């Protein structure tokens, strides 16, 4: 194999050279997506929905299109607001006719590195995800036929669908494809943490201490840890790519008090009761409130939860059940991390390093429609 490589390279250069000037690209062209070198190289970019400049442009128009909701009051961006990391400052999002949704709107970024979508993982792809809020009675409450009919009545859309997909026609599949394309461009890679990883930013001592605590699983008497990094992984600080491991029970409720079964609603597996998607922590400081039901208003409350308010239940994650900075004695039935106040402050300092103002103000992601 190796011996053939220089030959084929040589050959393909000639091919490219001779063919390139004839390449027809009058309307559409591939969208140049730059993959941050310090991110995982295992991302999902479906072959049947390659990004194009016109497809991304259409997706952005649709993302901000209130006509996709039944009463014309809601777009995706109503609950996924750029300044809040494409999340919603309300604990539970408000849909058409003022109806209250069931869960907090998830923040959106680096979605090519996510394996499943929604807090309960019910969509396997961004394409599958895109059409569900349009039809959810508590969100946009429209029908796909209705959404398609609306877009067909708007000349800017009939033209843009043709530019994006090469042939005329508005279909629900194309709506999903375009929305997925736009959302894949939402890459957040310029936070102080990214710049630290690229060697462009020198963290403060507090931030460095926070990074170390975040990544460390505590060993009592040996090393202190915040026990965050086993679930919020690597450079992306998102959930685990393997199997269903991006879904975990983080001790919010006892079995008796729980009102939302999370992943179990999708898998039907009793052992998935109370498991929810481990969210990416990128831009976490601006995506309050927190958890699937938005129950915590501040990051301080979130840390207090993990440190001293874990509720035991049958599916509580073993990584939480076991971890502590103090030896666990069998008479101690509470589950606590025993972090000190200064350690919580350090972890908070690190979490603030994940705020990417370039992303939050990127003009390529704003509302393209003239008001």
């Amino acid at each position, binding site marked *: 194999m190796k011996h053939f490589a220089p030959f084929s390279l040589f050959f393909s250069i000639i091919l490219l050279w001779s063919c390139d000037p004839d390449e027809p690209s009058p309307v559409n062209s591939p969208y140049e997506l730059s993959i941050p070198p310090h991110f995982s190289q295992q991302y999902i970019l479906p072959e049947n929905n390659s990004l194009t400049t016109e497809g991304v442009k259409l997706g952005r128009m649709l993302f901000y299109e209130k006509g996709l909701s039944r009463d014309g009051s809601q777009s995706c961006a109503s609950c996924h607001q750029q300044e809040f990391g494409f999340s919603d400052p309300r604990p539970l999002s408000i849909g058409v006719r003022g109806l209250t949704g069931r869960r907090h709107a998830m923040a959106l970024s680096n979605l090519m590195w996510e394996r499943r979508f929604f807090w309960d993982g019910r969509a396997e792809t961004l394409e599958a995800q895109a059409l569900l809020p349009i039809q959810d009675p508590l969100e946009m409450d429209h029908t796909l036929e209705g959404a398609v009919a609306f877009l067909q009545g708007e000349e800017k859309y009939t033209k843009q669908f043709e530019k994006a997909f090469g042939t005329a026609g508005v279909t629900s599949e194309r709506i999903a494809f375009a929305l997925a394309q736009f959302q894949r461009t939402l890459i957040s890679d310029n936070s102080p943490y990214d710049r630290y990883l690229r060697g462009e930013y020198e963290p403060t001592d507090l931030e460095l201490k926070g990074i170390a605590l975040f990544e460390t699983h505590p060993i009592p008497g040996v090393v202190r840890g915040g026990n965050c990094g086993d679930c919020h992984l690597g450079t992306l600080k998102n959930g685990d*790519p*393997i199997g269903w491991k991006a879904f975990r029970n983080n001790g919010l409720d006892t079995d008796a008090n729980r009102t939302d079964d999370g992943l179990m609603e999708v898998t039907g597996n009793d052992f998935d009761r109370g498991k929810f998607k481990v969210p990416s922590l990128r831009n976490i400081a601006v995506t309050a409130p927190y958890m699937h039901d938005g129950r915590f208003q501040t990051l301080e409350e979130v840390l207090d939860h993990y440190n001293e308010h874990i509720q035991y239940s049958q599916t509580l994650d073993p990584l939480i059940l076991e971890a502590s900075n103090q030896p666990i004695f069998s008479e101690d039935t509470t589950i606590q991390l025993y972090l000190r106040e200064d350690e919580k402050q350090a972890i908070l300092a690190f979490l603030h390093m994940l705020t990417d103002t370039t992303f939050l103000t990127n003009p390529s992601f704003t509302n393209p429609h003239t008001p």
Partner: protein
Amino acid sequence: MKKYWLLLLLPFVGFSCDQEVKETVPMTLNFEFLYDNEPLVLEAQTYTNALGQSITISDFRFYLSNLRLEGEEMFTEKESYHLLAYDLSAEDSIVIEAVPKERYTQLTFAVGIDPERNLSTDNVGDLDPNNGMAWDWNTGYKFLLLEGRYLKEGTQEEGMNYHIGGNDNYRVVTLPITLEEADTYQLKVKVHVDKIFGDKAEVGVTEAERQTFFIDFERNSPEDTMFGPYSQNVANNYALMFSVVND
């Protein structure tokens, strides 16, 4: 001045050399994760160790690296870092595109990441700090991860997190195989997860005569399940958890 144009001939030189290289064929290693010789079941199944203590398992994965085949000739896979995981099923596989068509009698690989690569940030093979097998950039990779619960009698269950790593826990495994020259090679590697805690067939054998060490779940403190000296007993055991047959 310098004859750069000669570089243009290089591809053809490479091309002609290839004629002498032995034909290569693909090889598939199919892995089965077993507990007590049955496919591993996550969470829903209670398992016991050699000491009769009960656990459930919720996650299992390990790094297999530096894969080598030996016979008359030796084949060493380049950049050989494979993550094997219970990813929706108790099976996983490794495909090697081009293995010289030879007879092979021995399969060698390691559990873990060699010291040269362990602290490197290069994403080579399946090495990727985003896949749940990295601690951080100073500590290297978890070689083997096994999470679950210790169902301790008469008390609340405990979390059980074996995250074995550190250079002292890198283990090389050598297994006899019989591969005749063929157009495709296929091996089934059985991973006997139960042996990580000691071989139950050795119950009744004195501790000094046992090949495996009986892991005591009372020693599930993170010091014993990550780097500490006790973790080397686990590493010695996982070096013995494999068996291989032609598939």
